[in-house]
């Protein structure tokens, strides 16, 4: 019983345990729900899944089901990012416990009951619980924003700090985290308010199906703004998180954090104002640049750091020695690399399409445009997921050859899959319909191969973590002890501060 309790405490109170549970939940959902589309349908696996689990897949409800599935996964990803944030950004222990506890109950409630409602008959009690879960996630977001409040004196940075700070000492990185949290809350309300009109003037839709409609209702625009900015903010959050992980600091950090803060504000304002501002896209472009620029600064900093650390014992390193140092740790290198690669797959596609705008958007079928649109944001979401995996693998203490194999396999196979998906989505630019079959066959195979290996890799990693949980003194036990120690020290420090404050108050009164 004691053994079970210890493991339960590890899984549901420590950062690593909580993240492990959430990653396992996403992996499980992906593994099961992934069988409902793509090649799994062709191989007949979908029919088996539907029959074995007793799913109810009404044709008219498909779009609604997908939206709920996205939301359940999104809530879980948000929870993972929040666990990382409460771990790396200084805050009070009770704040961390409260935020993590509420978001855990929230995402699990929305995940379980959202999927039950969407895929197993429409029991509206489950729908209510799905909404309750999301509300709890939102509430934990409010607590997070409060905990991240940057203008608390105890979080000010001293003069000469290598991290970005204002003249008064306010931590710019904390400001960026705070702004991101507030922007996320605001953006969530756009979705929530629109959702409240569901079946009352608002009908379920997938944004990619409406792209060419000349007139969109305000509710449709609100959803389109909401979904774009939420994914962008998830990307911003992971960029800030890995910045902490790789100890982003110095001159580039001083530039990056104020620019990032500005970018978050402008980008969010642009995406949300799409409801009533005709030229919202211009605001979005203006916001996207200052969001992407800090990411570029981070990549430059982190790669430079890897090279310097890796060649510290060489007096005059050659180009190849520098390259070797850069590529030595695939987890740390891969984090920046995936951000660079994103530009080929997402930003590059956008620019390329803009060049062929007249043909693509004015003549080609909407379905071709839809493939490109859905392709680019699926790739963006999946790239973010790989960066989360890099970070979590590092937190889990992967070392030596396993670390290299894990990291490089993840980089290479994901890039093969995403690169192929990009080529597939843009195929009409270089091959016509009646000659496309060889290209389609090749790219589809590479996508399936890449994604399949990633899933196998994730399964092996999670299998190892599961096996470890059965060991009396496994890695989980060390992580648990270490986290307990850190938390105890933090609480002790807080108690000391509180004592000092109380003493000062008493002295003040007795004067």
């Amino acid at each position, binding site marked *: 019983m004691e053994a079970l309790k210890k493991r339960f405490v590890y899984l549901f109170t420590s950062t690593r345990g909580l993240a492990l549970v959430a990653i396992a939940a996403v992996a499980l959902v992906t593994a099961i729900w992934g069988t409902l589309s793509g090649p799994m349908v062709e191989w007949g696996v979908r029919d088996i899944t539907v029959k074995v689990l007793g799913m109810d897949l009404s044709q008219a409800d498909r779009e609604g089901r997908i939206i709920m599935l996205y939301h359940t996964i999104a809530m879980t990803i948000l929870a993972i990012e929040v666990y990382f944030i409460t771990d790396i950004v200084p805050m009070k222990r009770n704040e961390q416990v409260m935020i993590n506890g509420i978001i855990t109950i929230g995402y699990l409630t929305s995940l379980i009951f959202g999927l039950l409602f969407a895929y197993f008959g429409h029991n509206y009690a489950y729908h209510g619980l799905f909404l309750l879960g999301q509300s709890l996630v939102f509430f934990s977001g409010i607590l997070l924003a409060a905990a991240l409040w940057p203008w608390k004196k105890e979080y000010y940075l001293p003069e000469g700090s290598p991290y970005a700070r204002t003249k008064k000492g306010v931590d710019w990185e904390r400001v960026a985290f705070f702004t991101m949290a507030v922007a996320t809350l605001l953006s969530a309300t756009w979705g929530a308010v629109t959702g409240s009109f569901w079946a009352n003037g608002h*009908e379920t839709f997938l944004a990619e199906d409406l792209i*060419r409609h000349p007139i969109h209702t305000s509710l449709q625009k609100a959803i389109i703004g909401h979904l774009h900015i939420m994914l962008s903010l998830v990307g911003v959050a992971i960029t800030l998180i890995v910045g902490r992980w790789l100890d982003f600091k110095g001159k580039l950090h001083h530039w990056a954090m104020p620019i990032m803060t500005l970018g978050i504000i402008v980008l969010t304002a642009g995406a949300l104002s799409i409801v009533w501002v005709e030229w919202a896209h211009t605001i979005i472009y203006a916001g996207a640049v200052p969001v992407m620029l800090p990411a570029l600064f981070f990549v430059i900093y982190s790669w430079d750091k890897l090279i310097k650390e890796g060649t510290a014992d060489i007096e005059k390193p050659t180009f190849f020695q520098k390259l070797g140092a850069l590529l030595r740790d695939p987890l740390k290198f891969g984090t920046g690399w995936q951000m660079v690669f994103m530009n080929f797959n997402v930003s590059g596609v956008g620019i390329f399409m803009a060049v062929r705008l007249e043909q693509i958007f004015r003549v080609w079928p909407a379905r071709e445009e839809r493939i490109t649109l859905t392709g680019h944001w699926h790739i963006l979401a999946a790239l973010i997921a790989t960066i989360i995996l890099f970070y979590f693998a590092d937190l889990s203490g992967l070392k030596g050859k396993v670390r290299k194999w894990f990291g490089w396999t993840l980089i290479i196979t994901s890039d093969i899959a995403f690169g192929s998906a990009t080529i597939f989505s843009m195929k009409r630019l270089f091959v016509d319909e009646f000659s496309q079959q060889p290209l389609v066959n090749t790219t589809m195979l590479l996508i399936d191969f890449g994604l399949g290996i990633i899933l196998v890799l994730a399964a092996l990693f999670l299998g190892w973590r599961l096996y470890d949980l059965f060991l009396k003194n496994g890695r989980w036990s060390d992580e648990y002890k270490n986290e307990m120690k850190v938390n105890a020290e933090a609480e002790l420090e807080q108690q000391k501060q509180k004592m000092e404050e109380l003493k000062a108050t008493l002295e003040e009164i007795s004067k």
Partner: protein
Amino acid sequence: MRRITLSLIFITLIGTACQSAPNISAITPPYVDTGVDPDSWSTVPAGEFPLGQESHPTMIGYDFQIMVTDVTVSQYAEYLNSALASGDINFGEFTEEAGEEIWSEEGVGGYYPGDPFQDAHHEEEVKAGDHLYVPFSEGVRLTRDGEIYTAIPEYANHPMTMVTWFGANAYCKFYGGRLPLELEWEKAARGTEIVGEDGLAFPWGEEIHGNNANFYSSFDLFEKMFGKLGNTTPVGFYNGQTYSVDGHVYETLDSASPYGLYDMAGNDWQWLGDDYPDQHYRYMRGGSFYSYEVDLRVWKENNAGPQFYSPQIGFRCVQNEVK
């Protein structure tokens, strides 16, 4: 050794995929007689029907007739020959434009009087003048000898594809009809039946199987013969018959719509007649052999510029007068 093995597996997989897969322009399938008459029409009576994904009750206050199948290659060849003879259409180089891009294509085409232009955001003006109907290009299932068009025999009863909206519209007009409107098409496809709270998702019901329609990876007869992306099937193919062709036996389900129409889901997208304000796009319904099954649901739409043509887009006509 392990690295070499993994590399070999990877190279083999890529190599397998890169093998010369047949493309549809290179395929000449055997002629398959479906027994369905492409000259037949069906009457859709006036009345209410469930519209769209949310099945909104919608009224069409008149009867109309619609073709039981798509226009076939053979029918279109006959039209081209008649229209060329009467001087309604001509061979030549046709100039099309989109935004600032202007290009020319050789083919057969004719006059279109243009559309009202509102100059809305992203709207392109569809100008009066000669427009391309069918290009002289790979993928057209017609042969041309001087001014006489002939359907490639094996494709004679397949839907006419590689035809622009202008070409589809002209065909229907030539015979005193027109392209169906979206509302008409959907009613003809799904009928009026309500199951639970919803209208039919597919012309034959709620569920779709590979033997119902020709869609991506539906394992139809031609996919079995030529590969995954497949090809169009002859019109009316999914009528419950079992076909035996070149040693391949294929059983179909009778997948007619409530009004007896075939191929209202899959095989090829069908051009529609609506000219909506503030846009130049022409809409299509039905899904094609390239489409995933979800795009075969009766309410799913697609659209393209009227000058677009493709091996997966065809059409059928309607007439207001019930014969």
